[in-house]
């Protein structure tokens, strides 16, 4: 449906620079208080009159919906899952960071701020990150009050552990199921508001487009996944909490149905998309076993607290792990990064794993794996203590691989896990479409070019419980008397017609290839050329190939059944339509950013010892892309990043 050739698409234009006008000036530690004071409030009696749409019920959406409803707004909430409790946040394993300094180990809000800006390789906004660090302590209080069963010590106080990229122990956890427990806390708070009639919940209903009227976000078009009915929903503001876009790669640790449709459709309606090439490849996932693989499974980063990563010193050493003597093993992270060792940030650990595998020292089938070994930990603290900390992860590993990690080392390999990029938002979490807000992984805000472990849960809950409920008031107070929108409005009719046409076309092609076959093909291309290491030539290859796949998709796709029924093939195909466009923007963003930073590694830009080489003079900005129309090339808007508190340096974890 897009006739532009790769050359025209890559010849993007640069538009006006973009600035975040909402973050106040002044000392970074006071900005959030200042903004909260300056933001207008909505009188409690008037809140009932405002409807707010929230799309998604994960940590960000669930906590936002519950909190906005507690404040008195009328919330209309959507999730495509059969229950709001199943949003993908549930699968987060390791933990949530907070600068409580309960360990008295030198932690502070400033240190969490510093670690996160540095961990993000100096591509995040200082104002946002500092606010995140401040709010982190309130999140733990809130979750404990809700009954989240965090791990505790014998004295009854909360336990913490360490995560990658930091030297303090600030990660709170609930065994390997922290995301599940935090999400259930938010889901239960949301359930209380549903029962009270303050939240109108639509489960198994998927947002397919955004309604923009007179330049403001006023509603969504959604499809009831059981009956196939297309419906419109209107409100005074729309909040997208629809998660990340890692499933562009087909194989990732994301849930099968996590998708980019809500954010991509919002982008097409005017919301800028920032840093789409910043994707996180997580170092510790279970390697794939064959072509049938439908998804990849993460093994929590917390395992790197006690597990030691190694490969054989010699190339092509196929002996079982137990037969390789100690002096013939290369504990490469401990060797290259002695001060952080196995706890280097994710991007660094992933690239190091790729490097040793590229050298022919990988282990397991196809040599695409490295060992994560607990033998020392079991000797040091006993099997029972290891079981207490990681039992459920070990069980999961054994179920998937049929190998017992208490006896043989785990085999792990990097996999796509998280997307730092997302809709561009200002300090208020508002996108470039007035009235459209984005929270959690759906926005680009806090992680720069690389997210530190246990920071996604922190950001999702910070956005939903504390940031958005304070900032959305300002928008609503300034737009108190919105005219009602009806289905007869020309803007609505246009969106509805486009949605229906798209679904009808998908059903009408009746070709000879399944939706999955296209998704897999796109994913392999992206992993090859826009994955752990990127080159100009590779990205140009991908940019040439994606429009071809797209053309083939629209002539050969086969979607059985009709649109007026429960039709999982239609759901899938419709999501792939958006992946096929988003993938192109990811490659273009990766091509234009001719530097390496965080998870974005351009082979042309590295230090003599193979580390990512940033080019701050040219690229110290967030790249916000404006949709260039179907078939057109996008427009780049740069938001310059200023670092007043954390001076950009070459990251060193050695």
């Amino acid at each position: 449906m897009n006739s532009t050739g790769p050359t025209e698409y890559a010849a993007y234009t640069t538009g006006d620079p973009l600035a975040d006008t909402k973050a106040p000036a002044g000392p970074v530690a006071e900005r959030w208080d200042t903004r909260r004071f300056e933001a207008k409030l909505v009188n409690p009696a008037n809140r009932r009159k405002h409807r707010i749409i929230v799309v998604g019920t994960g940590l960000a959406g669930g906590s936002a919906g519950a909190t906005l409803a507690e404040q008195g707004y009328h919330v209309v909430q959507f999730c495509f899952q059969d229950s709001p409790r199943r949003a993908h946040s549930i699968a987060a394993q390791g933990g949530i960071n907070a600068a409580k300094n309960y360990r008295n180990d030198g932690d502070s809000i400033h240190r969490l701020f510093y670690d996160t800006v540095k961990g993000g390789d100096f591509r995040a906004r200082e104002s946002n990150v500092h606010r995140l660090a401040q709010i982190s302590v309130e999140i733990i209080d809130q979750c404990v009050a809700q009954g989240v069963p965090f791990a505790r010590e014998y004295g009854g106080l909360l336990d913490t552990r360490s995560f990658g990229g930091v030297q303090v122990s600030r990660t709170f956890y609930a065994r390997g199921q922290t995301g599940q427990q935090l999400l259930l806390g938010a889901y239960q708070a949301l359930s209380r508001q549903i029962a009270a009639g303050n939240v109108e919940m639509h489960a198994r209903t998927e947002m397919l487009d955004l309604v923009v009227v007179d330049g403001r976000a006023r509603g969504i078009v959604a499809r009831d996944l059981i009956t196939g009915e297309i419906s419109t929903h209107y409100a005074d503001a729309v909040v997208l909490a629809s998660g990340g876009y890692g499933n562009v790669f087909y194989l990732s640790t994301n849930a099968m149905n996590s998708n980019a449709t809500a954010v991509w459709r919002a982008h097409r309606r005017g919301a800028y998309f920032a840093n789409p090439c910043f994707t996180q490849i997580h170092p510790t996932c279970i390697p794939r076993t064959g072509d049938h693989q439908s998804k990849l499974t993460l093994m929590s980063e917390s395992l790197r607290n006690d597990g030691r990563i190694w490969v054989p010193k010699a190339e092509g050493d196929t002996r079982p792990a137990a037969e390789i003597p100690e002096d013939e093993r290369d504990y490469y992270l401990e060797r290259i990064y002695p001060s952080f060792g196995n706890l280097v940030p994710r991007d660094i650990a992933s690239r190091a794993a790729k490097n040793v595998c590229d050298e022919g020292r990988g282990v397991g089938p196809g040599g695409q794996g490295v060992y994560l070994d607990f033998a020392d930990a079991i000797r040091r603290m006993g099997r029972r203590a290891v079981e207490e900390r990681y039992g459920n992860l070990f069980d999961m590993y054994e179920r998937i691989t049929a190998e017992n990690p208490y006896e043989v080392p785990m085999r792990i390999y990097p996999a796509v896990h998280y997307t730092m990029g997302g809709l561009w938002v200002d300090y208020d979490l508002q996108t470039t479409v007035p009235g459209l807000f984005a929270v959690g992984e759906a926005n680009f805000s806090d992680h720069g070019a690389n997210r530190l472990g246990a920071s996604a849960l922190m950001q999702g809950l910070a956005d939903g419980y504390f940031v958005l409920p304070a900032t959305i008031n300002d928008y609503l107070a300034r737009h108190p008397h919105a005219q009602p929108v009806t289905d007869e409005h020309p803007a609505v009719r246009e969106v509805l017609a486009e949605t229906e046409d798209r679904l009808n076309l998908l059903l009408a092609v009746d070709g000879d290839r399944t939706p999955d076959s296209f998704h897999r093909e796109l994913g392999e291309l992206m992993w090859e050329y826009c994955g752990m290491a990127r080159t100009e030539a590779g990205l140009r290859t991908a940019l040439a190939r994606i429009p071809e796949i797209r053309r083939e998709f629209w002539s050969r796709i086969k979607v059985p059944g009709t649109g007026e029924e429960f039709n999982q093939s239609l759901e899938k195909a419709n999501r792939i339509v958006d992946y096929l466009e988003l993938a192109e923007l990811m490659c273009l963003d990766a091509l234009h950013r001719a530097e390496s930073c965080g998870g974005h590694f351009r082979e042309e830009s590295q230090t003599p010892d193979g580390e990512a080489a940033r080019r701050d003079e040219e690229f110290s900005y967030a790249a916000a892309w404006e949709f260039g129309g179907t078939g057109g090339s996008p427009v780049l808007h740069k938001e310059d990043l200023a670092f007043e508190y954390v001076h950009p340096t070459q990251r060193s974890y050695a």
Partner: protein
Amino acid sequence: MRLTLRVWRQRNADTPGAMSTYDVDGISADMSFLEMLDTLNEDLILRGEDPVAFDHDCREGICGACSLVINGDAHGPERTTTCQLHMRSFHDGDTIDVEPWRASAFPVVKDLVVDRSAFDRVIQAGGYITAPTGAAPEAHASPVPKADADSAFEHAECIGCGACVAACPNGSAMLFTSAKVNHLNVLPQGSPERETRVLDMVAQMDAEGFGGCTLTGECATACPKGIPLPSISAMNKEWLRARRKAARG
């Protein structure tokens, strides 16, 4: 390996369903059960037939979406979720029956997909602690004995899949409801709403049409997260305590 599948096909809630037979070939032992069904569905689409609808999402055993009765067992022969069941648990030439959860409170949506919204309504009746955002005291203000925290966690592990209901000859939701009651009632934070929680959740559970509990214990055997059977007696005790307290006024 080569397998024969007998799968429940049902167009929608209003149309009667029946078992249909399919052969699948080239199945590897490393595939998950759902990847085996993916293989079947790819074939069905190319043959112009309607693929088999089934709920699934995280495929790592935590979201609780997947829900198949396999050879008569909820989630199949291993003690795990369907998505974490691998084909190495089966043999070449096997015939495998695949059905949806069977319970009157979980009506079939299509094929193997059922409507579990009754569980959401049981939680809405009281499966929460009233703690509005911003009102929380400092987290260390009330220490929780480790044993209580561990017990709360053990019950909070429930993924809401509904295997307990599917496995129960009475279609009872006692294990699901008791898991949430025991998670919250054991904690000091959950104590103020302890009585209303258990009374309201049990009343909602009954109103949804779940059957009564006769302590056959099938639920705890099927539970992929190992929610223990004594959870039910603990809830009964809580319920009696709350009723007595209510009767005394």
